[in-house]
């Protein structure tokens, strides 16, 4: 009799425990289709938060709370993984992995970064986020630092304050109203940066593409480096005083639109088969440079003469330290069999900023705005 009672109790206990476990599992991870999964966690105000999915659009927004909140309709489960080395549980975490799981991943954390889900996330404004998706777009706004990577999706970042690193293979990158150290790269997509400034003296701005066009507007970082293979580079806006600008292009054109009172020194390496078209009064520096092209090949182009046939060159004013070429159009020379590289060193105004242009097979335009 005792044995039978023991067996009944054991079976009942087993059934009860299984039921409780199943209910707990349902409460934690199971959601109905279309139901939003949301998780929140108090974190350090300058936390580093990572989020990655295989596919899906990621939207990250900075807010004033010291808390992260993650929402997704497509996910079945969202977890936080504290990855900082110090295990002081009394303090809010400063390094957090956001684990997004859905049907494509199951609940196995080994399938991290393989979820297919659109995710919205709020993080502290002082946080640094690292987000990555394969196919979806990335939108980040109002954070201190942003690392963003997408294979084919577009990346849009606004109001980042300390640093931005964004890379895409085929998607475009847009950065607006941000400051700090900037590094943007895309192979085939275009890159656009508007109203960018340095947060400290050594904040550099670097951008590179293979075939994507690059458009910079009001970038005032003290050091700007632009590289592309055959994209068109366009930079407009005032130059940073004592700023250093480097442009390297293989076959695309380089267009620099600057205020009429811009002061810079130009060091250009261009093919003699392509033109340097300048609307500025450039003064040649004769030191360590090859002699300027023959006068017969130099023709002026005033701003009013846009779209018209260049007129013959006016006699240059007698220079104090060298010949003055104002404004110039260095016309294409006669076709030559071999590649000839021409070096042009000139100064405009007092030469505050330094502009280095290297164009293997493109035209360089210096325009006034």
């Amino acid at each position, binding site marked *: 009799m005792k044995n039978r009672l023991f067996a009944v109790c054991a079976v009942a206990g087993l059934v009860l425990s299984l039921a409780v476990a199943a209910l707990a599992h349902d409460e934690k991870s199971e959601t109905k289709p279309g139901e939003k999964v949301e998780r929140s966690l108090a974190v350090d105000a300058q936390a580093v938060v*990572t989020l*990655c999915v*295989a596919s899906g659009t990621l939207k990250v927004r900075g807010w004033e709370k010291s808390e992260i909140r993650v929402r997704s309709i497509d996910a079945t489960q969202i977890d936080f993984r504290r*990855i900082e080395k110090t295990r002081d549980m009394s303090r809010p975490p400063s*390094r957090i*992995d956001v684990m997004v799981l859905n049907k494509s991943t199951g609940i196995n954390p080994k399938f*991290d*970064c393989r979820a297919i889900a659109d995710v919205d996330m709020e993080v502290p404004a002082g946080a640094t986020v*690292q987000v*990555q998706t*394969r*196919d979806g777009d990335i939108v980040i706004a109002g954070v201190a630092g942003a*690392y963003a*990577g997408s*294979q*084919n999706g577009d990346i849009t970042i606004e109001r980042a304050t300390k640093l931005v690193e964004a*890379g895409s*293979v*085929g998607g475009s990158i847009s950065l607006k109203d941000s400051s700090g150290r900037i590094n943007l*790269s895309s*192979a*085939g997509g275009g890159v656009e940066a508007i109203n960018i400034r340095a947060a400290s003296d050594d904040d550099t701005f670097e951008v*590179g593409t*293979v*075939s994507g066009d690059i458009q910079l507007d009001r970038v005032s970082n003290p050091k700007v480096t632009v*590289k592309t*293979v*055959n994209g068109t580079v366009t930079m407009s806006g005032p130059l940073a005083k004592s700023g250093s600008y480097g442009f*390297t292009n*293989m*076959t695309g054109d380089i267009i620099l639109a600057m205020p009429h009172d811009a002061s810079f020194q130009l060091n250009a*390496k261009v093919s003699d088969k392509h033109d340097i078209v300048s609307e500025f009064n450039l003064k040649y520096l004769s030191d360590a440079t090859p002699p300027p092209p023959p006068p017969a090949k130099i023709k002026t182009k005033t701003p009013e003469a846009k779209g018209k046939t260049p007129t013959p060159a006016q006699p240059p004013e007698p220079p104090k330290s060298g010949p003055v070429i104002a404004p110039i159009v260095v016309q294409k020379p006669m076709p030559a069999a*071999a*590649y*000839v*590289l021409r*070096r042009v060193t000139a100064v405009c105004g007092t030469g505050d900023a330094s502009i280095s242009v*290297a164009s*293997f*097979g493109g035209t360089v335009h210096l325009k006034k705005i």
Partner: protein
Amino acid sequence: MTRCLDEAKLQSYFDGELSLDMMESVTSHLASCTTCAAAARELEEESLFVMSALAAEFETSVPTERLRERIDAAVLGERLTVAGATQKSSGLAAFFSGLLNFGTQRSLGYASLAVVVAFAAIFAVVKLQTTPVENTATNQVAVAPKVPTVIDNNSVAAPNTPAQAVALPKAGSEGVRGKSGSEGAKGRYQQVKYTPPAAPKPAADPVKLLPGERSYLQTIAKLDSTIKSNQKDMRPSLQVEYQRNLAVVDRAIAATRSAAKSNPNDPDAADFMFAAYQSKVDLLNTIADARLGGGRGH
């Protein structure tokens, strides 16, 4: 017979090679001469010892003279039979009947021939798979011998260097061009129509690397092999973007390399080439990272 028997005569005695008279004489002598009798016993013991040691060899059947005669007779009969059949049938049929008439030696011969043919076939297959450049005649001509090829500047290093393996023609890139190559060739190797040269031309000079170029080529080769190792896992959209931009970079490398080569004393020309190489390295790094999925970069 008073004189003692010599060893040769004793050996002949034991071997049964003496005549009957001599056998009787030796037997009577051994019966009366203790010295020769002792020598005979010693010789007999030695013979027994040798016989026991070589017993295995002696057990092997050695064709006797009678057997040899039977074999010769059989062979002669066989030849006569074949000759008779040859007179009745055509030469080709006789040839095949002869081929199909398997004797023991012929079977061994056929087996050996089969082994040789099999080895030759294996060797030929392996050789075809590993030959780097095959000049396949496309139009009624056999394989073209030593057709000079113009090698892509950015993809081939000097011979006997590690970078020689950097043959990186991609779809859309300049690739390896044959002498009469068409621009549409996208494969790794291009078929070349062979036309007999009027005069033998020297082989194409190996591409000489410009200073500083080797390290870029080696890096590119490593990255390229990394990408190709799992290229099947690359998504089509990424693959398309990769190939498109790779072609752009390869064209830039080819152009800048040509300029650097024509201006060997101009460091700026080389700088353009290095910038183009660096663009390719950056692109390959980006693709390799993207293909691997990135993951969380803590």
